[in-house]
């Protein structure tokens, strides 16, 4: 894998190595300068061995995630690269007919004439870089092994010239060595390994090849590896065979023509890649020069070979091997990016865990830190000690994390292999690049070092008196006045933070030149000026508010949704910081006095405030008074942030008029923002949960005090409770969102709706000669199968290459894209298209049966059509003006997200038609076939649903497709390149059985639509399951945090536990209490993350953000979600049992003695 998120891995490695060197240098410098503080940090490590293990575990999580993602990417890239190289073999480049708008002809017409091959050979005869040229003609055919009786409905038949094949090294044999057709007669065929296996064929067997309705006998002369030159044209259907070129031309009726000229370059299978660019350039220059020469010579278009009637070159060379290798790299990189994206949630949980651990460490050592500060240690010295300790954990954790990450990746590759093996017969070889190991370990160390550094800075801020007396910080901390300079230095320092590595290096050099006294006076400013600037007089409230506000207004139309939604999160949080800064709304602080900041914050949220006040009144009426300072400000802000995220297009687009676009990165931002807001909301209102649980506890007799104490403790430690809830919630959020959305679409995809009202589909290409299924069945002596079929109908695809299309006019939409604009005659006005260029799409013609019976769902209809059926019925007859009507797939909608047109030359509907437009204007287009100089105009009146509709019409194809009456297709094309037959199973018959019977009778690949969709979904699910497992790893961080909290609770509360035991708490109650407490935290995290995810998923599903939902109901995968919950709760019990047991088994007197 060479790239990740568009960054070169080599560059990334250099950056990381430099950062590591800077960390090592700075820490080395600190160790030499202040060895005592360094030792102080290191000596803390063996104090609590179990805790050290937990810390290393927490620190390694990020490295593990990165390492496993990289290793998986390496494995995929390397395996696919090897496969790409092996399959293409010695064919490094292909010269082919280039289909493009204005030159879209049928597949039979898009061939390479003999002259091109001859000219190429002559032109490059002296070029030592080129080993040889090989002409190839390929098409589909069915095969039957006479000796074994086995048959293949779909296979590829490739015609090659034996001498040309031998010149580039022959055809690689399945058992090694090279095979050749040179010695065989015209009936010789070499089968590739897949075809031979499916036909149970051996050399000497007779195989009947059926093409264009005629059977041709062949004798197997050899079994070859699955490669391009043995007929592996399609990775999903690799079965094929190779025959002599002349014989293939005769069978397919194309004398003297071929599909492509392969070019073999020196350097063997892999060495040719180095020459790829220059050979490609040379070939294309030659082809273009020939076209220019023809045009310059005034050759009439009908006599030209290289140039078309628009004077464009016709043939093009593509670097086949390089493209395949690039595709393999891209696949590995995309997979790694996806893993990393999902891993971001786990990395976030890991970072929170590190932070929590260091805060707890600091609390444990609070009084000794206080004493150290009292006797003269500076804050910076404490930071140094923590950094030294953290770095020691960090290095160990990076090593363990990298190795474990590799192990996890290898495990995941095993899962992938089972999915791919079943679906494609392909497995991946486990592989890891040393560069990936360095980057993963280095990234882990850098990431963790930064987290440890920030944690150390936070924990080093302490009030010496409070620390020594071990009393709460807030009890002594004084409020400082607002610093005007801080308002400038805080954002300035933040903006310059990126310079820290440079200033650290520069500071080190400068330090040597400065006298000791100057060094002493400059202190941290010498090495980390940006950091010092930022920390000098912290005034974050204004920075956050202003940056948030800027982010909200900055994105222009079509701008970044990440920035906009990030602003909608940061802005309110900035206001909260403002309220805290001026209003004292700190959780656990002295309360929230009425200040301008608070009032300003409350104005837009009066209804919420009223609800909260009412709730508080109710609590008082019930005799429950629980102090929750700052509740209102925190509740309002977090609720507002959640509202922004939950609000759909009606708020952001219709009310605020915002038009922004986002990608998968929004998934992480939504999780981080919503969980942050949710945790704040929960923590400040935890007493409500406590009341509820206490009420429950009232009904369980003696356990009531156990519940009472268990739920009371989390509310008294909001920071650590909040952090732990956040860790669990963010992972649950990712898991539940991912699972829910996937399950909803899987249900849609495999529903009856997706099948479009049919059960069976069979694709017959031009060579099969099957354009009337019932007639073909009768001709094949299988007329009785007709009884198993109902509603037989067909779609005829004009050209497998595409059809030219040009926008003519469209009904005018009003400014709001909601109503049609009438013309002078009162009828809807058709606005002519201006400068509409020629584009391309696939054209399919439906017969009357298909138009009368299909149930394919439309996502949009033209005005005046009340139902999908009305649209389909309209396609059966011409319009009054003689034009036919048409529908088009949603892939032609300009903003259809992931389904958007991928080629620049693909046809797009006018931009007034958007992804969510339900009523569309009619659009008239002109379809043409330049080869026959034929053109037809049709009017588009519907858009096929992009999820459930496309599955039925063009499974697996994401290019735009237009469906009209088949009369239009046959007016443009002499015959169809492909006919797709549809049918329903008659009552009492199974679709799969019928499909197999048709396949056997006609040697025509026939599929049960539902079974096929389910099979695709199964493979997809296996991969998704892998992502879920990968994400769930992060849950371990949250659960580990519970373990850390439980251990800490046992230490902190030893005396309290002693008292409880003394006054009558049984040991079991103590144990149960602690486990309930951790279970309570875990449950809140699970419910919060799961709840936020479900609401967001529901909103996204209902709005059709990931695709049309065809009116389907939102589905909650209760079973799977309960399984996640149950597993997490069981893990909570397991993790907290040991500390709980430890707490309960101490003798009471021992617990009471503890100080």
């Amino acid at each position, binding site marked *: 894998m060479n790239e990740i998120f568009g960054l070169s891995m080599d560059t990334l490695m250099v950056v990381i190595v430099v950062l590591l060197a800077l960390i090592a240098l700075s820490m080395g410098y600190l160790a030499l300068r202040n060895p005592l503080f360094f030792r102080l940090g290191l000596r803390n490590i063996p104090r609590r061995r179990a805790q050290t293990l937990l810390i290393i575990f927490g620190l390694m999580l990020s490295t593990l995630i990165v390492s496993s993602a990289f290793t998986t990417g390496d494995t995929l890239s390397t395996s696919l690269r090897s496969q790409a190289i092996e399959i293409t073999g010695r064919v490094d480049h292909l010269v082919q007919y280039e289909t493009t708008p204005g030159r879209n002809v049928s597949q039979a017409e898009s061939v390479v004439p003999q002259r091109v091959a001859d000219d190429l050979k002559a032109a490059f005869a002296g070029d030592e870089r080129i080993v040889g040229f090989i002409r190839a003609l390929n098409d589909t055919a069915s095969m039957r092994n006479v000796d074994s009786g086995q048959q293949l409905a779909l296979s590829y038949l490739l015609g090659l010239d034996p001498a040309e094949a031998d010149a580039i090294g022959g055809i690689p044999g399945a058992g090694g060595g090279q095979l050749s057709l040179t010695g065989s007669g015209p009936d010789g065929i070499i089968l590739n390994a897949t075809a031979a296996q499916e036909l149970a064929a051996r050399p000497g067997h007779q195989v009947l090849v059926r093409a264009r309705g005629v059977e041709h006998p062949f004798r197997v002369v050899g079994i070859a590896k699955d490669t391009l030159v043995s007929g592996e044209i399609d990775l999903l259907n690799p079965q094929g065979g190779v025959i002599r070129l002349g014989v293939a031309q005769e069978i397919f009726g194309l004398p003297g023509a071929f599909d492509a000229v392969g070019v073999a370059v020196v350097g063997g299978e892999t060495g040719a890649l180095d020459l790829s660019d220059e050979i490609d350039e040379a070939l294309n220059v030659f082809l273009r020069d020939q076209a220019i020469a023809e045009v310059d010579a005034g050759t009439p278009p009908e006599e030209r070979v290289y140039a078309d009637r628009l004077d464009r070159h016709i043939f093009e060379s593509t670097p086949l091997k390089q493209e395949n290798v690039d595709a393999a790299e891209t696949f590995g990189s995309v997979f790694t990016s996806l893993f990393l994206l999902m891993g971001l949630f786990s990395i976030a949980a890991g970072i929170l865990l590190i932070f929590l651990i260091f805060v707890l460490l600091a609390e444990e050592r609070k009084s000794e830190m206080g004493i150290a500060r009292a006797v003269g240690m500076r804050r910076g010295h404490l930071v140094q000690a923590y950094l030294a300790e953290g770095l020691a954990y960090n290095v160990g954790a990076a090593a363990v994390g990298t190795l474990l990450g590799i192990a996890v990746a290898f495990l995941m590759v095993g899962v992938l292999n089972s999915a791919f093996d079943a679906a494609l017969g392909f497995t991946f070889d486990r592989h890891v690049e040393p560069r990936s190991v360095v980057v993963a370990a280095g990234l882990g160390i850098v990431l963790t070092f930064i987290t440890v550094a920030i944690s150390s800075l936070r924990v080093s801020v302490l009030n010496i008196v409070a620390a020594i007396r071990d009393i709460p910080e807030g009890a002594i901390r004084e409020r400082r006045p607002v610093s005007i300079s801080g308002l400038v230095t805080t954002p300035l320092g933040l903006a310059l933070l990126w310079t820290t590595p440079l200033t650290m290096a520069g500071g080190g050099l400068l330090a040597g030149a400065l006298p000791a006294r100057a060094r002493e006076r400059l202190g941290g400013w010498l090495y980390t000026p940006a950091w010092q600037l930022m920390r000098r007089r912290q005034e974050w409230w204004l920075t956050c508010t202003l940056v948030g506000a800027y982010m909200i207004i900055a994105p222009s139309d079509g701008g970044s949704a990440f920035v906009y939604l990030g602003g909608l999160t940061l802005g309110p949080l900035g206001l909260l910081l403002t309220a805290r800064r001026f209003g004292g709304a700190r959780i656990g602080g002295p309360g929230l006095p009425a200040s301008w900041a608070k009032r300003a914050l409350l104005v837009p949220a009066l209804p919420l405030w009223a609800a909260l006040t009412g709730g508080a009144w109710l609590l008082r009426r019930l005799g429950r*008074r629980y102090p929750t300072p700052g509740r209102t400000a925190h509740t309002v802000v977090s609720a507002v942030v959640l509202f922004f995220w939950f609000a759909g297009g009606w708020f952001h687009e219709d009310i605020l008029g915002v038009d922004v676009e986002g990608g998968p990165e929004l998934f992480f931002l939504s999780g981080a923002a919503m969980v942050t807001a949710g945790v704040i909301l929960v923590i400040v209102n935890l007493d409500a949960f406590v009341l509820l649980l206490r009420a429950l506890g*009232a009904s369980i*007799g*003696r356990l*009531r*005090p156990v519940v*009472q*104490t268990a739920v*009371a*403790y989390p*509310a*008294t430690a909001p920071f650590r409770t909040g952090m732990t809830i956040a860790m669990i919630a963010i992972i649950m959020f990712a898991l539940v969102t991912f699972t829910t959305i996937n399950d909803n679409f899987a249900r849609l995809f495999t529903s009856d709706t997706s099948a479009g009202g049919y059960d069976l589909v069979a694709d017959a290409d031009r060579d099969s000669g099957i354009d009337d299924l019932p007639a073909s069945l009768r001709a094949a002596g299988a007329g009785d199968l007709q009884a198993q079929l109902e509603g037989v109908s067909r779609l005829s695809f004009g050209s497998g290459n595409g059809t030219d299309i040009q926008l003519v006019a469209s009904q005018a939409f009003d400014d709001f894209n909601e109503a049609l604009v009438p013309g002078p005659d009162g009828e809807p006005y058709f606005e002519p298209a201006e400068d509409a260029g020629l584009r391309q799409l696939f054209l399919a013609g439906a017969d009357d049966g298909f138009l009368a019976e299909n149930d394919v769902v439309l996502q949009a209809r033209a005005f005046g059509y009340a139902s999908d059926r009305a649209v389909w019925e309209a396609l059966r007859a011409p319009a009054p003006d003689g034009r036919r009507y048409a529908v088009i797939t949603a892939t032609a909608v300009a903003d259809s997200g992931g389904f958007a047109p991928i080629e620049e030359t693909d046809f797009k509907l006018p931009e007034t038609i958007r992804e969510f437009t339900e009523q569309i204007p009619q659009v008239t287009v002109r379809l043409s076939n330049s080869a026959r100089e034929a053109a037809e105009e049709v009017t588009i009146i519907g858009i096929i649903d992009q999820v459930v509709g496309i599955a039925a019409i063009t499974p697996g194809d994401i290019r735009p497709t237009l469906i009209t009456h088949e009369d239009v297709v046959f007016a443009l094309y002499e015959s169809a390149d492909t006919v797709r037959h549809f049918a329903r199973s008659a009552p009492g018959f199974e679709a799969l059985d019928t499909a197999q019977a048709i396949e056997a009778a006609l040697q025509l690949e026939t599929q049960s639509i539902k079974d096929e969709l389910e099979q695709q979904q199964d493979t997809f699910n296996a991969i998704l399951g892998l992502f879920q497992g990968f994400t769930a790893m992060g849950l371990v961080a949250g659960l580990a945090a519970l373990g850390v909290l439980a251990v800490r609770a046992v230490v902190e509360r030893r*005396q*309290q536990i*002693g*008292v*409880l*035991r*003394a*006054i*009558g*708490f*049984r*040991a*079991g*109650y103590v144990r149960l209490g602690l486990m309930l407490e951790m279970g309570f935290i875990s449950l809140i995290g699970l419910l919060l993350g799961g709840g936020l995810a479900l609401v967001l998923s529901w909103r996204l599903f209902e709005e059709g953000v990931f695709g049309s939902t065809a009116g389907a109901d939102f589905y909650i995968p209760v079973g799977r979600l309960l399984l996640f919950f149950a597993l997490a709760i069981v893990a909570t019990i397991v993790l907290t049992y040991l500390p709980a047991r430890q707490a309960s088994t101490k*003798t*009471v*007197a*021992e617990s*009471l*003695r503890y100080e």
Partner: protein
Amino acid sequence: MAASPIEVGAPIIEATDVHKAYQGDGNVVQALRGVSMTIRKGEMVAVMGPSGCGKTTLLNTLSGLDSIDAGLIRIEGQEIATLPDNAKTDYRARRMGFVFQFYNLLPVLSAIENVELPLLVSGVSPSQARERGRAELARVGLADWAAHRPAQLSGGQRQRVTIARALVNEPAIVWGDEPTGDLDSVNANEIMDLIQELNETKAQTFVIVTHDQGVGGRCHRVIRMVDGQIVGEDQNRPFEPAAVASA
């Protein structure tokens, strides 16, 4: 263990040749070396002696908070050392109360919730527990402070809550480990007034470990310990069971 009805003035705590040793860092510390003593129901006894003499260990072993290595301890006629842990715990919940030097209230619970805790673990209904808890807080003069958490109370108030918690289940014996150790003299006197009043009005037995001569002086009897042994006793004022019983 069912509490046997014992008359005021009859032995309620009997220790015979009790031994207890602690092991730590390779050293064995003999905390109790053959302690024998008897305390009568309704009596208020102080245990005094220098630091490390075994006072707290004696209190812990007598109350069943800690185990013994040898000897015999009878509380209300029942041998306590051999009871299973749960039975011992239930007995403590019903028949004993504890007052510690540093109050040891649960910081996460309010005063009333701290007080009602022993009742709830004894199976008393929540409403009854709340009612009795309020009454007990009123008795120690903290009726208006029921909803406050320990952090919001002064040292003296906290110790009153502790006493209310110790007495709420009307225990036969109240154990105090330096109950005034963390208080100033005014608060200490108020607390001792309260303890003395409760002892006299409720006939509850108080065993108090203390360094404070003033506290010792307000008890009927002072047991003096040195190096894990009882070395003497002072009778400060006569214990008159009839007077206590009639009160």
